[in-house]
């Protein structure tokens, strides 16, 4: 199994600022992913966080807006840059373990005012 800790769990941010979300896993994992869940919507994959190389972004998401770091096999960060109210969402970190089981963090609930 894997235990995932996300920080912050919740935050209220000012328009135009940036916020970095941290994802810490209690074991080494190869694959880490970041998702966004807008209010009342489903989850959408933002990017795959690759250890030692640039993240792989899905269509509609760009590195300038959502820079991602993956310095080692247990940690990743997602930054939401130059925030607008449309960025108000839950951001979730997810990992896949060697047993091919997928785990999610508890999410970071951002409100942009």
């Amino acid at each position: 199994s894997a235990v995932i800790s996300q920080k912050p769990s919740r935050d209220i941010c000012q328009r135009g600022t940036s916020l970095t979300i941290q994802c810490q896993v209690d074991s080494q994992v190869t694959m880490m992913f970041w998702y966004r869940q807008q209010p009342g919507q489903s989850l959408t994959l933002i990017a795959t966080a690759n250890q030692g190389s640039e993240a792989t972004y899905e269509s509609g998401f760009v590195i300038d807006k959502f820079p991602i770091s993956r310095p080692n096999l247990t940690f990743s960060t997602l930054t939401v840059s130059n925030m607008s109210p449309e960025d108000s969402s839950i951001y979730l970190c997810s990992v896949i373990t060697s047993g091919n089981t997928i785990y999610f963090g508890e999410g970071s609930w951002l409100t942009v005012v």
Partner: protein
Amino acid sequence: AQTVTQSQPEMSVQEAETVTLSCTYDTSESDYYLFWYKQPPSRQMILVIRQEAYKQQNATENRFSVNFQKAAKSFSLKISDSQLGDAAMYFCAYRRGSAGGGADGLTFGKGTHLIIQP
């Protein structure tokens, strides 16, 4: 690209009854995984059940079972003896398997809001 469709935005069932949530998907891959996740108001994503496409036998986890129809690309979730704690959003999700690259994340359907009537 793969797509996942959940055609029931909301379902309601009496406590102790059985309910079936529908999910269809579209893919050209032969190796993939299908999942049902539960998301209660806490927003935590909880894995309910998982199905490997190469397995013909339908997955079962206690009161939860699936009807996996590979040719029809259908993956429905049956909840038996519904309980009040089952009330949540339920998301169907797809992931490509290792044979197809395997580096993908999950593709989710839009979700079904399940209401349990006491």
